[in-house]
């Protein structure tokens, strides 16, 4: 397709504009975390790391960080097991309702978080399940499963069954085939899916709100709760900056991993 010089210029401006809208605020957050002014006057009046040390010693933030990491790890682990099992069932076996199940597994990523949250909340209270750590893990797993499922499914579809047949042909039992052939083939996909799942869970807030108990706080919820307290503002800013870095790294790694993977993330 050839574009006129004007169209090309417009397209370029639009691209830069779009990227700016997304990344300039993130940059401001990062810069402000080193800004000595409590009111974030612009331009920054100097450079300080005092907010970072204050944040690091803030018990609420530390507690919330720990909770977030634990929940993200648990949700990722659950997603890895269930997501890859579902991918196997869909890729390797024919059964009644396969397409439907495949659709149902992917659906939660498209559902608004608020719908998932309300649905889970009423399901838990109807079932008499007390909200807490585990209910958040289950809530996060609903969308974490999807990214693992998609990554593993794409990989399984691409590799086909020939290698597994070759392994069985050479005398390997089903378990040996899984350990020596299937799993090594899937390692990249599992890692990519796991990193994305972790990142998704780590900064989730909507579903979390509906599934968490009153005493527990994840990092995003802590930020939300402290956002409008004036003297917490610099610390909130630091935590937000840390959150940006913590989510960018796994997504970047996952992207690198799935490049040679052929499988899109979603």
């Amino acid at each position: 397709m050839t574009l006129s010089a004007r169209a090309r210029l417009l397209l370029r401006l639009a691209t830069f504009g779009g990227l700016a809208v997304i990344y300039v605020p993130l940059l401001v957050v990062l810069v402000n975390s080193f800004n000595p002014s409590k009111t974030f006057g612009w331009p920054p009046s100097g450079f300080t790391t005092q907010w970072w040390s204050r944040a690091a010693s803030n018990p609420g933030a530390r507690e919330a960080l720990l909770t977030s990491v634990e929940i993200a790890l648990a949700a990722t682990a659950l997603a890895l097991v269930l997501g890859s099992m579902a991918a196997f069932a869909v890729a390797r076996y024919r059964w009644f309702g396969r397409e439907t199940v495949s659709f149902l597994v992917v659906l939660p990523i498209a559902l608004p978080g608020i719908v998932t949250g309300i649905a889970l909340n009423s399901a838990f209270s109807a079932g008499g399940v007390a909200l807490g750590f585990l209910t958040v893990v289950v809530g996060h797993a609903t969308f974490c499963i999807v990214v693992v499922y998609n990554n593993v499914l794409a990989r399984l579809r691409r590799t086909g069954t020939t290698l597994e047949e070759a392994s069985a042909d050479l005398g390997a039992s089903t378990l040996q085939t899984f350990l020596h052939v299937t799993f090594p083939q899937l390692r990249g996909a599992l890692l990519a899916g796991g990193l994305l799942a972790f990142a998704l869970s780590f900064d989730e807030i909507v579903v979390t709100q509906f599934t968490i108990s009153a005493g527990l706080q994840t990092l995003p919820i802590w930020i939300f709760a402290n956002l409008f307290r004036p003297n917490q503002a610099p610390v909130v800013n630091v935590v937000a900056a840390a959150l940006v870095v913590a989510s960018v790294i796994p997504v970047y790694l996952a992207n690198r991993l799935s490049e040679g993977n052929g499988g899109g993330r979603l």
Partner: protein
Amino acid sequence: MSQPAGATTPVVSLRGLRKEFPGVGGGARVVAVDGVDLDIAEGEFVTLLGPSGSGKTTVLRMIAGFETPSGGQVLLRGADVTRTAPFERDVNTVFQDYALFPHMTVLQNVEYGLRVKKVPRVQRRERALEALAGVRLEGMEKRAPGQLSGGQRQRVALARALVNRPSVLLLDEPLGALDLKLREQMQVELKQIQREVGITFVFVTHDQEEALTMSDRIVVFNRGRVDQVGSPAEIYEHPRTTFVAGFVGTSNLLHAKASEALLGEAGLFSVRPEKIRLLADGEDPVTGETVAPAVVEEVVYAGATTRIVARLDAGDSLVVQRQNQRTSSLDTEGLRGARVRLAWSREHASRLPDDDG
């Protein structure tokens, strides 16, 4: 006929083997293999030959255990293995795309079968190196499969299968991905290796020339059924069906009208192109030769040979293949449109059943 004289228990027996696949989207079921009976003796090189979709791969997959037959039995050395898992069968496969494990080195690939059978490390290394030497791949053991040429990959696949010393080696168009030169070289090597190791080979191809040059026996498949089983010479010289006559070599058919006039017997006959000669002017046929006057329609010069298409006065047209021993392209040019006499020995006209094809 399908069992060579003096054979003990066949290594592989197929009894009324059948395979149906469910049709796509509720369509009609596909009968991929339709009642195949076959006995394969120890040390034989048997080729399954047939066009695309005739069921060769499906038969191979049922012998290996990847596909469960819809009917009939697979016996290995007399034992029924119809429902036995692939890893419990004393059979190894060389896949068409080789199916080498990409995350393992050449040596690890070859060792794999021994490793999963818990052969001690030292011993399995020794045997793997030996197998690699057997396929002339010394010094390649540390490479990844991705760093090998097509021909080398093919040999790794062969070594990986042979190292297990199976009773039977199944090969599904193992040379299909190679270029012509390498293919011809591998045909010779494969045959040599088979003679050295003495393992029964079941080889699948749709290339009739490959089948003729390599096999002890050829099994010709036609739409899931076996049309004919025999030595390359039997198959080529005495095809028993129109399909075999056409698929193996050039189809050169005389129909009822022409055969009645020329051979005195109405029926369907096949005559191979190289069995027919052109009589020189005034030359008399030898006794037992059939003579057919004809007009040359087409002359194709092909280096070593010239192919002449001639329309018989009695009807039908035949292809004549002539060695270019003395002639050159210049001599044959003037032949187009000329009146000639074709001659062939009576025994080279094979009768085919009238009703098939």
